[in-house]
Every structure is written in structure tokens, then in C-alpha cells.
């Protein structure tokens, strides 16, 4: 069905279509519309799920853990302070190997309070064992949320998935969006280690130094296996519904002398910047990183790389830049869009024009 929706509405609609059994969520700008929309779907009977109006985000993730532990599909959504407030439970959800899906509206952290787009919230949770995808359009928010359930619940994965969308710039923008008829694309949720009173077990009991690392390794194993599951799921989605996604969305990269690497809406806007630069005779391309965990294998050959981080790890640098460096590149690292700082395709084109390979540039900070 064709509709006009915000990014938030897209997520809520995908969740409705995925038919979870439990949704537990707490409002926070700019994610609130997701919560409200789902509460409405539930009360109007459009969704059969139970909506649990938890008293905090620590509890929203806890409730999802409790639900998923029984083997049912569970969903939550949050943003920024909500995400870091539930940090302990993020680790827990992954360690308990529960295929929870969460939407995160990327937003800056305070103080001072700032409600606008930034990726530091979710990127700072990149060690938790959650898969992370960053979307770039309303349609993609819908599609990625649907796929997230299938990937999370895949027997080779059984890890939670976080779908990230830029606060306001994507959560609140209205675009056209097609819903799908899911059919059996999303099989019923099965959690092999679901609680079974007929076969009692002690979950998460004290695990000694001789054993603990094995379970941690299995999380890593699942992360690695998820690469294939993601590929297969995205291929199947394309086959059924006609929309194609990849861990990295490359645009005009084949012959590029310089590739702009970014995530989320900036990654989309970078495509426009590439067009602008091409018009000027600069052979630019754009590579939008969609999956940050597991981090995809990337290779841009000899091309210069300009990476835009809408985030920062203090005392280290842009987090995306860091991944590229660790992958052997020497990118020009641009820090831009922090706390909702306005960044246009013209600005991005400027970053490319002024690039210094290996250098770092904080957009808007006078030196």
C-alpha cells in the first residue's frame, strides 16, 4: 500500500506488520511517535500485541527480555538518553541471545539538552552485541525494520537488532512509502532456548572463568554468521518485494577518485554531493554504510576517502573514521552534524574539495 509517512510512522507500521506479541516502550523525543502510534494500533485493535507502558527505558528493555525469553517476538524503541539509560540491558539482551528488535531515533546526548540528530548514542553502544543498521529513507526504515526481525530470529544469529534512524531529519520527515504483504517472509518467531517449564534450566547463572569466554565467542560467531544471513535476507526481500539493499550502498563509486563515506540521511545527501562534484569534474562517489555491526568489509581501491562522522569518541576520533582506519584506510575524517548541526550537500561537497587525506576536520569549529 502506498502511503505518506514519517520515519517514525514507517517503523511503527513495520512493527504492526511483523506482529510482535509484546511491545514495551517509553517515550522520548524524537522517537515518541513510534510509541504513540503502536499504542494506538494496539488500542484500536489493528495490532494484537500487548503494549506495556513501562516506567523507564531500563524497564522497557527488561520487559522485552522477559517476553523474548518465553520465545515470543518483542519490540521496543528509544533514543539517546533512553538508549544509554538502558545500556546494562542492551548487554543483557545480547548475552541472553534474544532476538529483540529495537528502533533508535539517533539523537545527541546531553548536557546541554539537545534533541537533534547525532549518531553518538547508538555508536557508543557498538560493543553490546547488538546488530546495528542505519537507514536513509522512510521506505528503508520500514523495510529494514521488517528485515531486522527475520535476521535477529535466524537460528544462526539469535542476537538483537537495532534499527537506527536520524532524529527529526528522518523520524519526522514525510515521504512516500509502500508497505508489503509479508506472506511467509517472516516465519513465526522461535527461540530455541526459550523458557520451558517442562525442561527447567537456570538461565544466566554464575559462569566460571573456564566457561564464560565460550559464550562470548559464540556471540562473535553469530555476528560473523549474521553477515550471510543479512545478505540472504536482503536478497530475499529484493526478490519478493523488489527493493534492493546491501550492507554498504555504493553510488557512483566504480570509477570514483574520491568516495564519501557516511551513514543515515547524511549518507543520502552525500549522493547529491557526489553529483554536484561530478558536475564540477571531480569523480566522486558515495558509500553509505548501512550495517555498522557487523561492520562490513569495504574496499575503495586507490580512491581517496572522505568520511563524515555524526559522532565522536573523545580522545580517539570519529567512530566511523576509526573503523575505516582500522580497515587500513587513511580517510579525511570530517566531524559534522553533531547535535543536529545543519549539513547540506554543498557542505559535503566542500569537505571533499578541501580534503586532506589522513586529516581531521570539525565542521564549524574555527581553528
Amino acid at each position, binding site marked *: 500500500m502506498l502511503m505518506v509517512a514519517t520515519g517514525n510512522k514507517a517503523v511503527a507500521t513495520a512493527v504492526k506488520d511483523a506482529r510482535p506479541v509484546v511491545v514495551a516502550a517509553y517515550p522520548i523525543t524524537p522517537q515518541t511517535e513510534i510509541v504513540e502510534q503502536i499504542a494506538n494500533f494496539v488500542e484500536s485493535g489493528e495490532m494484537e500485541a500487548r503494549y506495556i*507502558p513501562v*516506567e523507564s527505558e*531500563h524497564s522497557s528493555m527488561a*520487559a*522485552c527480555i*522477559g517476553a523474548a*525469553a*518465553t520465545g515470543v517476538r518483542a519490540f521496543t524503541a528509544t533514543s539517546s538518553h533512553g538508549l544509554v539509560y538502558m545500556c546494562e540491558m542492551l548487554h543483557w539482551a545480547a548475552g541472553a541471545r534474544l532476538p529483540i528488535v529495537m528502533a533508535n531515533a539517533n539523537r545527541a546526548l546531553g548536557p546541554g539538552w539537545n534533541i537533534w540528530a547525532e549518531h553518538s548514542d547508538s555508536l557508543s553502544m557498538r560493543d553490546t552485541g547488538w546488530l546495528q543498521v542505519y537507514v536513509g529513507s522512510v521506505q528503508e526504515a520500514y523495510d529494514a525494520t521488517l528485515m531486522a526481525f527475520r535476521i535477529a530470529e535466524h537460528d544462526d544469529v539469535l542476537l538483537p537488532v537495532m534499527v537506527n534512524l536520524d532524529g527529526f531529519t528522518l523520524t519526522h520527515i514525510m515521504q512516500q512509502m509502500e508497505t508489503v504483504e509479508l506472506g511467509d517472509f517472516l516465519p513465526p518467531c522461535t527461540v530455541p532456548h526459550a523458557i520451558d*517449564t517442562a525442561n527447567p534450566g537456570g538461565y544466566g547463572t554464575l559462569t*566460571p572463568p573456564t566457561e564464560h569466554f565460550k559464550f562470548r565467542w559464540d556471540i562473535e560467531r553469530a555476528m560473523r554468521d549474521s553477515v550471510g544471513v543479512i545478505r540472504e535476507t536482503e536478497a530475499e526481500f529484493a526478490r519478493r518485494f523488489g527493493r534492493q539493499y546491501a550492507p554498504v550502498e555504493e553510488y557512483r563509486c566504480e570509477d570514483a577518485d574520491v568516495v564519501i563515506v557516511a551513514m543515515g540521511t547524511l549518507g543520502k545527501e552525500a549522493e547529491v554531493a557526489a553529483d554536484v562534484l561530478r558536475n564540477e569534474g571531480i569523480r566522486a562517489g558515495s558509500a553509505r554504510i548501512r550495517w555498522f555491526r557487523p561492520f562490513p568489509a569495504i574496499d575503495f581501491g586507490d580512491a581517496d576517502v572522505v568520511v563524515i562522522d555524526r559522532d565522536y569518541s573523545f580522545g580517539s576520533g570519529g567512530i566511523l573514521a576509526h573503523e575505516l582506519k582500522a580497515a587500513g584506510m587513511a580517510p579525511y575524517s570530517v566531524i559534522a552534524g553533531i547535535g543536529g548541526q545543519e549539513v547540506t550537500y554543498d557542505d559535503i561537497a566542500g569537505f571533499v574539495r578541501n580534503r586532506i587525506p589522513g586529516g581531521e576536520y570539525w565542521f564549524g569549529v574555527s581553528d
Partner: protein
Amino acid sequence: MAEIPKEEYILRCTSACAGCSSSLVLRYILKAAGPDSVLVVPACCTSVIQGIYPNTAMNIPVYNVAFASAAAVASGMSAAFRSVGKKTNVICYAGDGGTVDIGIQALSGALERGTDFLYICYDNEAYSNTGMQRSGSTPLGAKTTTTPEGKRDAKKDLDRIVQAHNLPYMATACSAYPLDLYKKVQKALAIRGPTFIHILAPCPPGWRYPSEATIEMGKLAVKTGMWVLYEREYGKLSVTGASKGALAKPLPVGEYLTRQGRFKGIDAATIDYVQQSVRDNLARIAREVEGVC
């Protein structure tokens, strides 16, 4: 005692200290709950005494969870079970720290939104698992490793806090009276919606008394009126078991306090103060029982 099932859901043996009353009460809780139950356990002694992976002494599903999260995990679990039509009992079994301190947000929230579960707080009046630090539930005057001179603040009144949530059933119990507890657990589990039981659970190393005195200590708590056994069904209070007698004629609190190393050196003024609070509390309860309030 004929009524109590012989079935034990805790296999010999947990690694609880000798004389641990929390282990004792858990035996009876599980007997009352039966096998179609899940225990949700936040960080506390109970998370450790089950055993170390790959073995557990608990012959019932135990879902160990983060310290602050028990009631919220139970919310999700209960919603999921009920959604798919299962009646499985969801029982939080949490220490006093995990209830009155770090866990109170989740508990209060779960009660407010009418979660169908039973929350049991076993109260050993300290963070025992980490070695007997003060909790909000530690009583006035008790020495802990973080209150070496005795706690200066009063014990947090968990029951009045819970009562303010107007839940359909709540009760207190004490490890020295396992049959009383057993009945209360059964009653609680028969009710839809949030139910709550608060159990005083003496802890030999924490309270510093010899392990054999565990039952005595619980009985003294009840007989002195330091702890009152009661239940509230839809708000209506009834005092149960040994507390009926204590209400009329409590022993002096000194008989309880002086038996425990944690109160060693407590001064007479504090004992008087405690005695007076107990007197007030018993009077308040008596008035309510008599229907005056």
C-alpha cells in the same frame, strides 16, 4: 503439614551458607507454586547459591536478571505468557536491596500497571551477597560493613510503599513460619494481577548469630513485634499466625536485638526508640484490625 507437597524443587544442595533462611523459604515458595512456574531472580545471594554453570540446584526454570530489572522482566514475561494463553506463574524472588533500593522503580511500575505476577522480597536487611553492606532495608542501629557504627537511618517501610499501590493481595511472612508462608504464596498465585509477599529472612553471617539460631531469630522478630505477619486482601488487613499473640503481648525488643552481633553495643536510647516504634506500629495495626481505621 499434610497439605504440603513432598516434592522438593531445590535439589540438594545450593551453596547457601549453613543456616540460610532464604533457602528455607524458597523451598516452601516452590512447593506452593509447583512446576509450572518461572522464578525471576535479580542479583542477590539467590543468584549465586543456585550453583555454577553448567549445574544448578534449582529444578524449576530460573531466569537470572540484572539487579534493577526483576519486576520489569517479569512484566514482559507475564504479558508474553498470558498473550499465548499460558497460566505459568511468574514469580520474582528478590533480596531487600534489589527491592527497596535499586529495584524499586521497576517494582513500582509493574505494580502500577497491574502486571499479573507475584513479587517476593526476602529481606535479610542488607546486601548480603556482596558481604553485608547497608541497604535501605537495614534497620536502625544495625552494623554493616558500610555502617560500622550502626545505621543512622530507619528501615525503609517497603510494605507501606507497596500498599500505596493498592494491589489485590499483599502479605508479610517470616522464614520461621514456613506453613504460614506456604499458604500465602498459594493465595497470591490464585489471584490475577500484582501480588506481593515480604519475607523476613534472618541471615547468620549478616546478622552475626550462630547458624542454628535462624528459626529462633525469626520467631523472636515476630514475638517482639519487630516483624508482623499479616495479609491484605483487597486492602483488608488480617494478622496471621504468631503475630496474633504478639500483637496482644509482645516480648521486649531487646530480646531480639541483643541476640545479634550486628546490634552489639547498641545503646539503651536506641533500644527505647525501637521499642517505641514497635509499640506505635502494633497499635496502628491493632486499630486497623479492629476496624477503627
